[in-house]
């Protein structure tokens, strides 16, 4: 295929991804009367934001005394001090206005008797810097992500954003000076590639938990933006940090919101013991997610799990009563009945730690600009390239994200990045010449799957990769386990060139999409194992049994993983954590207990 044959579309800005982050950024740009294209591989309301349940965190103080300083402290502590404190301050300071803005847009928040937005307690939330439980998470029943995603989509309809639904981005176009000039994308229905030329490109492609066999994530969470960034020669940050949500439904993976424990639910082992009191005597079931996930894993390991195989624990909420469950947790009840065969009004819900969220991702600054070490420092912006949401690493979540902070991340940084793109476009009014060779490279990704025959299948290799990651890079890790996993992944990756499709049709060829997604997943899996092997400490969600302590002297720093070739296939670099907030004093790292 030759690039001269593919159609070209020109926009001021192109956004890849139609979840909360992409839609929020698009709205900012559309409202500024810029010509913006939003490319999404699924119709936007199918994006994974829709699965967020419990809520969005902001110190509105509608229920408990609260302020953004406490929210900031909790987030820094929750991140196990790996979060960048300037970005965390920015997020927490802007949280209330971001939530009010969503309300003004029409988001149907649940309400308190006085008409204000309903808030519920979530894990890791405190008043007075580690004191009593705060009640900080704003909710629309237990479908807050659905409400947020649909509201943002609706506002974009009103703002006449130009949507390219069911277009799959193949690769970034980045010239030799490092400027990003757009993307090559595949129109799924026709199977035709086209070039989206734009002076600014914003990636909002979401997470990649589909590297694991069991995950709460949608099928579409395949790290497409991350693969694109690695292939463009840019790094990924902190890829060893994956959140295992304490309460996923075993095997199926469906998420049971932290809001369930926020509303008063608690965990018990097979003896009926409320075991969290042994692991987090103060916060109990509302300790940080990494803490609760490890506690459950230890109970299971000690033979205290429930069920035939003892591989899960029980989450009980019967005591809340049918009325409260129906009003506050209707979606959870539905999921539990559909996927666990348990009606929580009468039965406990079986739960087990399940891969849920990628704390790492594409390194950015507070404006969403993608940054990397080039010449003068570790964080030089890549001209024309932005990333927001789960695919990005700002880093506000550090080594462990607090519940309710991901939806907040989407809207705060979606808005900030959109605003910065507007300024960037003003300062960079002229298009630059497009390097044809880069366009051809992107098209080669597509042509590779035209290969008529092979000895491997995409589904087979994906299954092997997911098993490797599940078994070797889970809640607890060791050097031996990670090394073995990497050796196994090496072999699977070596077989990828032998894979071929049997379906070579053009129109809506989902087999080809899955192949392209697998390439991205493999790259993410590799970055994860290599980064995890190198970090010889335990911090947040990265628990090394051979290095059980946090080691601030050596490891209070961010990992940067680059994809190289041959002998230098994996390259690691590090950069310091930004400990200095914007206006307040640094929260100095200290021992983290709940």
């Amino acid at each position, binding site marked *: 295929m030759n690039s001269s044959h593919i159609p070209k579309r020109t926009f001021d800005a192109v956004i890849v991804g139609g979840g909360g982050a992409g839609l929020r950024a698009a709205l900012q740009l559309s409202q500024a009367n810029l010509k913006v294209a939003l490319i999404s591989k699924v119709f936007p*309301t199918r994006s994974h934001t829709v699965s967020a349940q419990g809520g969005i965190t902001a110190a509105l103080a509608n229920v408990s005394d609260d302020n953004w300083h406490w929210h900031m402290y909790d987030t820094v502590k929750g991140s196990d001090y790996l979060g960048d404190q300037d970005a965390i301050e920015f997020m927490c300071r802007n949280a209330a206005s971001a939530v*009010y803005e969503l309300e003004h847009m029409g988001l149907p928040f649940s309400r308190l008797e006085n008409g*204000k937005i309903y808030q519920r307690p979530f894990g890791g939330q405190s008043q007075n810097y580690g004191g009593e439980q705060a009640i900080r998470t704003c909710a629309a029943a237990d479908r807050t992500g659905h409400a947020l995603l649909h509201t943002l989509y609706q506002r974009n309809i009103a703002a006449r954003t130009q949507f390219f639904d069911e277009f799959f981005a193949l690769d970034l176009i980045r010239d030799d000076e490092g400027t990003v000039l757009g993307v090559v994308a595949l129109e799924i229905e026709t199977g035709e590639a086209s070039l989206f030329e734009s002076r600014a490109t914003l990636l909002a492609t979401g997470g990649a938990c589909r590297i694991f066999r069991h995950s709460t994530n949608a099928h579409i969470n395949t790290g497409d933006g991350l693969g694109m960034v690695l292939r463009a020669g840019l790094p990924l940050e902190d890829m060893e940090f994956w959140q295992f949500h304490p309460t996923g439904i075993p095997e199926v993976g469906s998420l049971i919101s932290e809001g369930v424990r926020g509303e008063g639910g608690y965990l018990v082992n097979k003896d009926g013991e409320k075991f969290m009191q042994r692991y987090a005597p103060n916060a109990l079931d509302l300790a940080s997610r990494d803490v609760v996930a490890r506690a459950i894993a230890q109970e299971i390991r000690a033979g205290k799990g429930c069920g035939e195989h003892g591989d899960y624990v029980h989450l009980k909420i019967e005591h809340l009563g049918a009325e409260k469950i129906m009003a506050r947790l209707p979606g959870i009840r539905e999921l539990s009945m559909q996927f666990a065969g348990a009606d929580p009004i009468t039965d406990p819900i079986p739960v087990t730690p399940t891969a849920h969220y990628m704390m790492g991702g594409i390194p950015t600054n507070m404006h969403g600009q993608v940054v990397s070490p080039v010449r003068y420092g570790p964080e030089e912006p890549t001209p024309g390239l932005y990333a927001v949401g789960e695919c990005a690493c700002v880093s506000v979540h550090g080594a462990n994200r607090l519940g309710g902070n991901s939806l907040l991340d989407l809207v705060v940084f979606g808005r900030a990045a959109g605003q910065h793109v507007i300024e960037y476009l003003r300062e960079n009014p002229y298009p630059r010449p497009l390097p044809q060779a880069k366009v051809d490279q992107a098209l080669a990704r597509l042509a590779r799957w035209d290969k008529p025959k092979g000895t491997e299948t995409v*589904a087979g290799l994906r299954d092997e990769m997911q098993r490797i990651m599940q078994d070797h890079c889970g809640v607890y890790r060791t050097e031996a386990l990670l090394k073995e996993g990497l050796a196994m992944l090496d072999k699977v990756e070596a077989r990828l060139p032998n894979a071929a*499709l049997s379906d070579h049709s053009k129109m809506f060829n989902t*087999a080809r999409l899955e192949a392209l997604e697998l390439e991205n997943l493999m790259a993410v899996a590799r970055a994860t194992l290599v980064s995890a092997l190198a970090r010889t400490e335990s911090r947040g969600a990265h628990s090394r049994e051979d290095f059980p302590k946090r080691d601030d002297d050596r490891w209070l720093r961010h990992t940067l993983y680059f994809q190289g070739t041959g002998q230098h296939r994996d390259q690691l670099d590090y950069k310091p954590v930004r400990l200095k907030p914007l206006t307040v004093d640094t929260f100095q790292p200290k021992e983290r207990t709940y």
Partner: protein
Amino acid sequence: MRFRIYRYDPESGSAPFHQEYDLDFDPKGKKVLDALIAIKDTLDESLSFRRSCREGVCGSDGVNVNGTNVLACVTPLEGLQEPIEIRPLPRLGVIRDLIVDMAQFYQHYRAVKPYLINLDPEPENERLQSPQERAELDGLWECILCGCCTTSCPSFWWNPDKFLGPAALLQGYRFIADTRDQSTNERLDFLEDPYRLFRCHGIMNCVEVCPKGLNPTAAIGKIKSLLVKRAL
């Protein structure tokens, strides 16, 4: 397990047909989507369908199973009569296999202006809404736009271009019912039309199939009674 699945390949030049698959699969606890994925992964890579969340919240995988519109990901395999017949949602154009052209459906959705219209200056904090006022939105805002209801509606089958269909009308009412919205009259003006709204004859297929348990017929009834009230 035996499946009978609608196949259409737009590039082949041949007419749609039904293909049978025998899948070695333990249906215990599994859903229709699990079987579709297993068929694609192990028997026939070319079988095409949409899917995303696999837990009934994103609305991607509306299909017709044994004659009823359902979400494949939340429909248990156990209890389904074999061969399990899976077809695309009715009345919409088929792009390929189980993938339908949703353009018309989304156009009707956009037509009801599915966004809050309130021209007052924005208050410093949230707009207040009592729990009772907010409760008026329950059963409306949870719609996932899967299309199961609209494509099960005979009125939509007869006038797909003019009748907005239950999903769009449900969303139309969602904003009428919102105390924060100021555009009720304009919304009612738009809906007061022999086709857009009044082709609904209360057949209630929509209520029967909605995978989220919503009731578009009731919402349509409420719009109608608002129109009557307004006329008096």
